């Protein structure tokens, strides 16, 4: 039997800009076991509910993660709105959906870039990030911010997009389609890219269900699981079917995200076409006093927002469970038995967000 070695992976390493630490137990070039440990980005922000009023807390929750910032803000608002029984106007729900889907696009393009960087295709990385800038421009035009834009508030949204603005967004996105197609065709069809992704890190349907994976990771293994199906926001009024793939390997996970890019464009177009008139927010009176669990489909998967109020301006507890948390067990399982050289691919294809995980 060959000798076992432990390779520490991180916290400073070339795959992710974020510090994550893994101990990889290897035998020759094969990983036998992977042991994650976290805490480099733990801030303890959930405990800030004791110091911030529930209306201000939305700014803190938005800063859990700069990539899915809008979704976190929405999730928090949804949780407190559920707690207080606030009904958000339809127009606000449609606008939220538009920004959320745009966030998904920016997140997936960012991820495609990082994946390309991970398998050593630098120009593909640059092209992904170049396309992503168009989405950021839309954010900037509609909200004023590029990555963290605090447009979601309790009871609705802060800013409206007028009919011309909506038309322009639809036009810009339609123009992006051809470019995204050209880009993603390389990811899905190129021989050397496929060589790195196909058959790597296979997670079967049963394993995915057993490990309770969420988001694109679950959908790539054939599970039709998407919280957008529960009809929150505008999703109940839109034609929508989650992107599901069967293979469960890195290529399938890439394919799911590529399909979701086009799906997001489609959803935004639908929202823009059927945008209802009316108010964009309702006033919030009183304080939350119950408990409520809200869920969101973030770009990385399902997230939980659990709020407990006690009738005062300060919540008793705000708990956020982010998608990466739930995908770490699956990552640990797929890492067992893989080649050392494939470790970056496996870590990247769960699309880990460490600052989400540790909060």
């Amino acid at each position, binding site marked *: 039997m060959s000798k076992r070695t432990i390779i520490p992976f991180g916290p400073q390493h070339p795959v992710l*800009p974020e510090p994550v630490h893994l101990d990889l137990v290897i035998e020759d070039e094969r990983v036998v076991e992977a042991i994650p440990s976290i805490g480099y*980005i733990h*801030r*303890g922000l959930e405990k800030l509910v004791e110091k911030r009023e529930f209306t201000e807390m939305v700014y803190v929750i938005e800063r*859990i993660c*700069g*990539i899915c910032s809008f979704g976190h803000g929405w999730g928090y608002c949804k949780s407190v709105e559920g707690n207080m029984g606030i009904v958000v106007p339809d127009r606000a729900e449609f606008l939220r959906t538009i920004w959320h889907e745009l966030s998904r696009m920016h997140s997936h393009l960012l991820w495609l870039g990082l994946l390309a960087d991970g398998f050593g295709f630098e120009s593909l990385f*640059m092209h992904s990030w170049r396309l992503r800038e168009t989405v950021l421009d839309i954010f900037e035009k509609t909200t004023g911010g590029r990555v*963290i834009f605090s447009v979601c508030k309790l009871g609705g949204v802060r800013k409206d997009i007028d009919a011309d603005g909506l038309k322009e967004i639809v036009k810009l996105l339609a123009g992006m389609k051809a470019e995204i197609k050209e880009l993603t065709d390389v990811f899905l069809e190129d021989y050397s890219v496929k060589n790195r992704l196909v058959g790597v890190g296979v997670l079967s349907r049963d394993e995915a269900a057993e490990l309770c994976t969420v988001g694109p990771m679950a959908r790539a293994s054939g599970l039709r699981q998407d919280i957008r199906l529960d009809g929150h926001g505008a999703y109940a009024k839109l034609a929508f079917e989650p992107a599901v793939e069967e293979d469960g390997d890195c290529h399938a996970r890439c394919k799911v995200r590529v399909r979701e890019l086009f799906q997001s464009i489609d959803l935004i177009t639908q929202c823009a076409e059927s945008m209802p008139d009316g108010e964009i927010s309702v006033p919030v009176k009183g304080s939350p006093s119950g408990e409520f669990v809200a869920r969101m489909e973030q770009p990385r998967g399902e997230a939980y927002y659990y709020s407990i109020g006690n009738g005062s301006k300060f919540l008793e507890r705000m708990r956020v469970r982010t998608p990466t948390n739930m995908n770490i067990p699956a990552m640990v399982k797929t890492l067992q038995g893989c080649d050392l050289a494939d470790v970056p691919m496996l870590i990247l294809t769960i699309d880990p967000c460490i*600052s989400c995980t540790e909060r």
Partner: protein
Amino acid sequence: MSYITKSPWVIHYDGSSCNGCDIEVLACLTPMYDVERFGIINTGNPKHADIFLVTGSVNEQNIPVIKQIYEQMPKPKVVVAIGICATSGGVFRECYNIMGGVDTVIPVDVYVPGCAARPEAIIDGVVKGLGVLAEKRARLPQELAEERAQRLAVSEADEAEAVITVEIPGDAKAAAEKGDGQNV
């Protein structure tokens, strides 16, 4: 072109940042802002780097990591704190696991505000850092000379102490001192 004195190489470390500033740092390198065309390179090796970009506030876990990166960087070096969290702890200042801004651990030369800091602001911060770098470079020979003098003073004091404790006879002590003087 004489005003472009150097294309700094930068190293980036994510403290306990929310990723917002990190993706903006990366956005500086990608086609829209593309600072690489000026020869600015994001390196992973602290010994290659001139400018240290730190995003996010500091928690106890990453104090040693930040210190190590800083100490490994060759002189002259500049630290740029990017975003309000790196500047002061920002919105997370009161969290139980947060120590504060980057300046609680290492000296910071340039502070870039913003949440998240915009790429333009980050580039501006790095350009400001270039000015600091030039100043530091100009001061470097003097600084090194001072450091050397200090080191010598310390080693002389150590030697004198050593001499006293082992009680070397007068002649040998004088010879040792003479020899030391020659070396300098």
